[in-house]
């Protein structure tokens, strides 16, 4: 694939860039996995002609190369770094008919980098309705480029774009703006000092605060004459640059673009007033949120039950149909239990991403940002924190990544730090199993106790996120540029294909990213639970039988078997680990088995249930469900281990604790330091320990 033509897609947000990417690559695309691997860019392949294959790189949305958000920095870093393996041969700048003028600003900047450029004008099907007429030939001449008119909604123009790309040798590389016009003396000086580098690239390196071109930046800093320009002077030059660019764009559009302003869109205005209304706006938002919850919890319980049942059956099937031995045990009790623990989250995660994608595609999400911004600010958050906080209910990993469009660093950091408090779907299995064990089934005012406790835990998640945000906001002293801008795109019917792609891709990333960790741990736990080094472990059978004989009670064979496996577990590697930490967790009301589950679920919360499943299936008994087996567990005095105090203490622990390695990894990546994930981990763990300690001691 190294011979493929490298094509980068770039464009303003809301221009339909991802639809074009999907149309070009189909399902031949990949997104980097989460833990530790690059996530910023989507890549895919597209066959342009019989001989030519293109590698398509989808850059994050950007309004311009003057960066104010991390998304934009990512794009600029790639476009300025020729040594990057993805440095494009051709850039496709994606614009849309309605905001063509603004979209062209980015186009002129890309052109000035001296890269071959194609302009793709999307949403061409809306031209008639908007009263827009375009003279493509004239515009191509004016902008010195090739243009493809595209409508992804009607599936038109993609072939024309492919054809332009396959004829890439004919594309112009020349610049459109003479940067000397910004400040002749300054740029003359630059050119003398760095004769080999494009002036516009130098200009970006001077004005942008990103990590590209470190060598050039250093040499610029060494040449004191260029850094002596004060910030105000540089800013004035940037202002002049923007004015010059728009002069160029306006003169080009004057010849090639016409709009009939009598065609106003009445419905759009009405919807805008409705969705941002001080009463109706909030009411509609909360109804939508509530319906999403309702659907996620009601609808996904069916597939989730089915998945649970299926994996239980599969595990039994393997045990019955494979010869008994270590391998069968590993498959049935380690691997299948592990995979089941991941697959069971798919329905909820997919539903949540479906709704988020629908709200974003339709243009509604921007109205929510607008409505919520002022409410979020006292907590040090931004209106744009709403989407991450909602996404956090599926999984904190995509939620942390969704903070990238928050321009203000402090608001973004606080959002990242508090997102893991929201009740992610990995907490749900822990909650469900503990609630089933310790909360009675009764009802009050027609509402089930169990459902009330679960709802309460979701509120607790949001409450703690906002409290933590307020504390952080009061204590973090960060002074960065304060900027907030959200585009309010016109309302559109979501394109189902795009929504489908988003849901598929995010769910897949979760399954393969988090899934690997969970699966690997399940196997490790199974191994540690079925092996040991001590004599007690090796001679478990004789010891147990000797004990039984000494009491001369009548015991069935099955019971003997059960006693042997419990004894083995207690003296296995994992049993000894659990005993070792028992003193630390005893004040919270936990025994050594729960202690093991706490340790293993440090990697990922849902491993808690998987561990208990593995521990209790190792200690086999007649009771077939995990809940049933856990309910049978007794302490030394014969009281149930999972009583109300212990159960609630576990719920509180999991509500606060940062039990997720993948989230720590992504926070490390997004904040570019270990400082923040470690602070987050310490803060959340201490809070969890103290809160469940208090809970247990009050209830017991």
């Amino acid at each position, binding site marked *: 694939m190294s011979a493929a033509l490298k094509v980068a897609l770039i464009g303003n947000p809301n221009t339909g860039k991802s639809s074009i990417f999907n149309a070009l690559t189909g399902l031949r695309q990949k997104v980097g996995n989460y833990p530790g691997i690059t996530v910023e860019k989507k890549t895919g392949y597209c066959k342009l002609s019989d001989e030519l294959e293109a590698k398509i790189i989808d850059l994050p949305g950007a309004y311009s190369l003057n960066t104010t958000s991390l998304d934009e920095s990512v794009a600029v870093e790639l476009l300025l770094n020729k040594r990057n393996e993805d440095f494009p041969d051709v850039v496709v700048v994606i614009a849309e008919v309605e905001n063509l003028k603004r979209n062209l600003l980015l186009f002129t900047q890309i052109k000035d980098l001296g890269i071959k450029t194609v302009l793709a004008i999307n949403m061409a099907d809306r031209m008639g309705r908007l009263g827009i007429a375009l003279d493509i030939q004239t515009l191509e001449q004016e902008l010195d480029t090739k243009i493809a008119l595209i409508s992804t909604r009607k599936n038109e123009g993609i072939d024309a774009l492919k054809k332009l790309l396959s004829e890439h040798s004919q594309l112009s590389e020349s610049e459109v703006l003479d940067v000397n016009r910004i400040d002749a003396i300054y740029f003359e000086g630059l050119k003398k000092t760095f004769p080999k580098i494009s002036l516009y690239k130098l200009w970006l390196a001077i004005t942008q605060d990103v990590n590209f071109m470190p060598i050039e930046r250093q040499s610029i800093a060494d040449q004191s004459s260029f850094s002596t320009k004060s910030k105000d002077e540089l800013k004035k030059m940037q*202002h002049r640059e923007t004015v010059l660019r728009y002069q160029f764009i306006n003169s080009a559009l004057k010849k090639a673009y016409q709009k009939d302003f009598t065609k106003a869109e009445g419905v759009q205005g009405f919807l805008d007033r409705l969705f941002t209304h001080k009463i109706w706006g909030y009411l509609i938002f909360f109804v939508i949120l509530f319906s999403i919850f309702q659907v996620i919890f009601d609808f996904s319980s069916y597939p989730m039950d089915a998945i649970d049942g299926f994996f239980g059956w599969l595990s039994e099937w393997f045990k019955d149909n494979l010869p008994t031995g270590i391998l069968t045990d590993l498959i049935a009790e380690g691997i299948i239990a592990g995979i089941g623990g991941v697959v069971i989250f798919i329905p909820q995660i997919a539903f949540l991403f479906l709704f988020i994608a629908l709200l974003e595609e339709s243009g509604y999400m921007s109205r929510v940002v*607008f409505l919520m911004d002022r409410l979020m600010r006292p907590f040090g958050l931004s209106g744009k924190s709403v989407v991450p906080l909602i996404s956090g209910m599926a999984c904190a990993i995509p939620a942390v990544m969704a903070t990238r469009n928050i321009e203000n660093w402090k608001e973004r950091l606080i959002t990242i730090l508090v997102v893991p408090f929201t009740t992610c779907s990995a907490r749900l299995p822990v909650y469900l199993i503990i609630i089933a064990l310790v909360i009675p089934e009764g009802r009050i005012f027609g509402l089930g106790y169990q459902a009330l406790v679960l709802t309460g835990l979701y509120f607790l998640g949001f409450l703690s996120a906002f409290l933590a945000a307020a504390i952080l906001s009061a204590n973090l002293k960060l002074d960065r540029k304060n900027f*907030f801008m959200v585009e309010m795109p016109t309302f559109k019917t979501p394109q189902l294909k795009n929504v489908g792609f988003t849901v598929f891709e995010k769910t897949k990333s979760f399954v393969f990213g988090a899934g690997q960790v969970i699966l690997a741990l399940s196997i490790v736990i199974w191994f540690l639970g079925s092996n040991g080094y001590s004599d007690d472990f090796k001679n478990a059978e004789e010891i147990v039988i000797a004990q039984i004989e000494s009491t001369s009670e009548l015991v069935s064979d099955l019971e003997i078997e059960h006693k042997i496996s419990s004894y083995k577990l207690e003296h296995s590697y994992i049993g000894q680990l659990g005993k070792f930490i028992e003193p630390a967790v005893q004040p919270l009301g936990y025994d050594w088995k729960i202690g093991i589950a706490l340790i293993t679920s440090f990697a990922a919360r849902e491993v808690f249930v998987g561990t208990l499943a593995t521990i209790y299936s190792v200690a086999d008994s007649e009771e077939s469900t995990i809940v049933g087996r856990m309910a049978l567990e007794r302490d030394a005095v014969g009281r149930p281990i999972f009583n109300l105090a212990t159960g609630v203490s576990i719920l509180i622990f999991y509500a606060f604790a940062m039990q997720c390695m993948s989230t720590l990894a992504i926070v490390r990546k997004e904040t570019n330091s270990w400082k923040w994930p470690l602070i987050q981990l310490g803060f959340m763990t201490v809070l969890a320990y103290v809160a469940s300690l208090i809970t247990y001691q009050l209830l017991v």
Partner: protein
Amino acid sequence: MISIDRLRVGQKGVIVEELDAHIPVKLMEIGCLPGNEVELIQIAPLNDPLYFLVDGSRIAIRREMAQYVKIDLKS
């Protein structure tokens, strides 16, 4: 001449020639340039942010930033 955070909903104006030196480059890039028209479309329920139509673009910005954009009112 007033700054656009003082507009009433539905009011319009044209951006003045002499730009405020502190206006963020981003605002200019989205269309806040001399001679362009700005209309206040909506104010968020708690009086902030503000939703403008700037030279054909629909954007919402916070009040404190809107102060940097000065216009001459259209009657």
